[in-house]
């Protein structure tokens, strides 16, 4: 029996889905969100993008980069592969582990669930951009102090979630901390130390 359909239905990845969708629309993918950076107003209304890479500009950690990305590229992929900012981790690639958490204008988002093209004018902050002028963010200091990472693979995501919390709420309760990290998966089981570190860091700012 011939078979070339490898992915079972539930295993189909988002990019493969988009790729499939692209093919059914004559090999291109029309982006209609109107937030494409580096394209003129006139372009936004008319231009079909893809499947080839297009030029965009993106503000990451305070610096504006010119990027050449395919419309199907996620923000996580653009950061990791184009900008070599590999601190942002990809684990599930479908929004269920928060390892890829970055900030868009100070709001935590999953970079694996965000298209690079959709970032637009928003400012991206990654784990690499959290320390300012060589000074660690209080949450980073606290993670070190409380041994809040073991293998460390979930750590960038954990830190982006908890740093955002204490930036916005300098007096969080333990429930606030649990809420802020509810999507962050850690198989090593660092949660108790993550919670302690976050509460301790909040006290310091």
């Amino acid at each position: 029996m011939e078979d070339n359909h490898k992915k079972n239905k539930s295993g189909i990845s988002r990019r493969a889905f988009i790729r499939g969708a692209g093919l059914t629309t004559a090999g291109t993918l029309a982006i209609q969100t109107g937030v494409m950076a580096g394209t003129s107003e006139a372009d936004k209304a008319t231009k079909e993008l893809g499947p080839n890479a297009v030029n965009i500009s993106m503000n990451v950690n305070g610096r504006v980069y010119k990027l050449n990305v395919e419309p199907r590229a996620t923000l996580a992929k653009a950061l990791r592969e184009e900008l070599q900012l590999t601190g942002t981790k990809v684990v599930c690639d479908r929004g269920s582990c928060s390892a890829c958490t970055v900030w868009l204008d100070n709001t935590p988002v999953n970079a694996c669930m965000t298209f690079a093209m959709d970032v637009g004018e928003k400012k991206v902050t990654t784990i690499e951009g959290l320390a300012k002028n060589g000074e660690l963010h209080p949450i980073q200091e606290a993670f070190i102090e409380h041994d809040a990472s073991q293998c460390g693979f979930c750590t960038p995501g954990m830190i982006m979630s908890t740093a955002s919390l204490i930036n916005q709420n300098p007096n969080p309760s333990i429930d606030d901390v649990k809420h802020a990290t509810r999507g962050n998966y850690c198989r090593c089981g660092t949660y108790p130390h993550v919670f302690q570190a976050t509460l301790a860091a909040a006290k310091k700012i």
Partner: protein
Amino acid sequence: METKKIKMPFGIKGERIEEVEREVPLSEPDAWPVNESLKQVGKSVKRLDAVAKVTGSAKYTSDIQLPGMLIGKMLNSDRPSATILSMDTSAAESLAGVYGIHIMKNEEKGEFPIIRYAGQPIAAVAALTEDIAEEAVDLIKVNYQEKPFVVDMELAMKPEAPIVYDAPVEQKASEGGEEIEEGLKVIGNVRGPNVGQPRGEIEKGFEAADVVLEHTYKTQVQTHNSLESHGMVVDWRFDGVTIYASTQGTQGVRDEFAELFDLPKSKVRVIVEFMGGGFGAKHGLGTHGQAAGYLAKKTGRPVKVMASRKEEQTSQGNRPNSIQRLKIGVKKNGDLTAIEQEAYGTAGVGLGAGVGGVAQSLYSCPNFQTRQYDVFTHAGPGAAWRAPGAVQGIFGLEQMMDELAESIDMDPLKLRDKADPSRVRKAARKMGAERFDWSRRKPKASDNGPIKRGIGMAQSSWWRVYNYNATVEVKLLRDGALEVRSGVQDIGTGTKTILAQVVAEEFGLNTEDINVRIGDTLFPDAPGSGGSQVTASITPAARNAAFQVKLKLFEKVADMLEVKASTLTMEDGKIYSTEDTAKSMSFLDAVAKLPVSQIVATESRSAEYDGDYLHWDLGSAQFAELSVDTETGFIKVDKIVAAHSCGRPINPLQVESQINGGIIQGTSYALYEDRILDRNTGHMVNHSLDTYKTTYGVDIPDIDIVLMEGYNAKSSTDAYGIGEPANIATAAAIANAVYNAIGVRIREIPITPDKVLKALNKV
């Protein structure tokens, strides 16, 4: 071997610590006093690599990008059992950006692999980008001849079941994995029995008992879920191969790669600077490492192959399930008279599905018999998973102990006091029970109202494992820089940091002053991170090497100060004679005057000082408190108190991190996790992180750790691991607490709401 006699601390802090005499190799240092009197060891110093981890600069294998590197993607079988008649790779090959295709070999050396489970790797494609590689994989046409299959263990045990292997199967155990007995007989899909070490006369034992209980306990298949998936980058150059591997054993990867490609080991270098979790599943080269090797060889370019999340769940390892029948006899006074165990487990197409040696070794009992069987199914291979076998075995044994205690009307702790010979666990029970306040335990099901609270406990046992093949080089440079080098890897437990602590202590320096280079087979060999053996193996080697470097330095300094080298000591950066403290010089001055630019010493782990190898009392007692909602069946674990011993703790906070992890994984195992295979298609139904339920932060109990400080006088650091012991007792403690809460025993995990409601006759 020349020896000397030294005095060493022995005992448990908080109980009694005495001094014992040990005969030790002359080349090793005198014993350290207890942690209280040390400056670096026994202190929760910060991890050396913590800054890299919190700033995102830590590079994991999946982060590696080399010039010209290709990305490999795997084609996996979507049939659970089949013969591949033909494969057409032409469309994939002609896709722009594709550089090479490798078809996975099979053990019978045929052209195509024999398919034995859904998700089995068949071929790998290397291409310029991940997307192109994925597209190419989709273009490969496979012509399967389907065969019958069976994924359910109990069905696979039936005589008429489809056969997974039609020839005898032998496989190697992974480092620190469940031991695999060789040459066992196979009937149908059932291989065994492995009978361990039986003792006494089982029937006479049962006759001597006042009560004999017999029950069956079941555990599920659990997947590892490491955040970083399996994978490697292979860079094959004319003068040798460099492999960046997400591995918990650099040496194992090197040896397997060298053997597979017929290369001298000296031409294979394996590097792992940071790795994102393993828990037992990341020993050896693995399917993705092999594929990266073949593709790199074929294309002449570096190739990275990382497993997808689905592959991680289906083909990269799991904890086998178990069905265990236990029959135990007990006298009214708590003496156990006979233990009989029969266990079946499936590691899919793999071996090593036993329930370990805990029933054999934890309690004193003159009569013991076990029969453990592996059952083959058409499912992905099992792999070592934190305390392989013991986690399953304790789930049965420790519930049975509670059932026996109830049958003779004895407190569960008292029964264990009677039956358990370990002094370490005795102290763990006492300290844990005090912290937990065990006295508040009420009779079963005594809460009124729909929410019922319960408490329970369970114990763990694990060997004090160590490995002679653990070597460390310590290098002192003329500017005072000290470097520790070893092939050993840091799986996330903090190995790097404890090596620095040990060397810093020996030199009277600070931990941050020591540069540790590990995770690279350019440096001396060391064991894999498995079986909780690394700390016990590598820290004495490090201390002994540091001691040798110090002695060599002292010989030079003795000449400079005109004193005897044997009178010299070093503290806070100063070297002085104990006979005349005026005779002194700073460490930095001394090294600056060295005639050579470096002093190097290399040492390996020596035998336990008392000659004794196996001990089962790397013990613990865990206590669980929980509430059961008898209307919804939902269980909330409120608290776990865990009293653990790992000998001399080198970095208490890091030890606590590991214990937290073990308990959280154990809670997850007890209540949530379950790999579900569709028996009609053979596919894993819940292969994504959102469908395979595990613990997130909102699910975890409060954890209170009683970290015991134990001295056994066995090596120059007297330290042991904690990884496995921390993970063993939790599920059984939770099950015992559930019984205490609702008065009905649930002998199968995960204890999901449906099982609770069924036990209460509510569904």
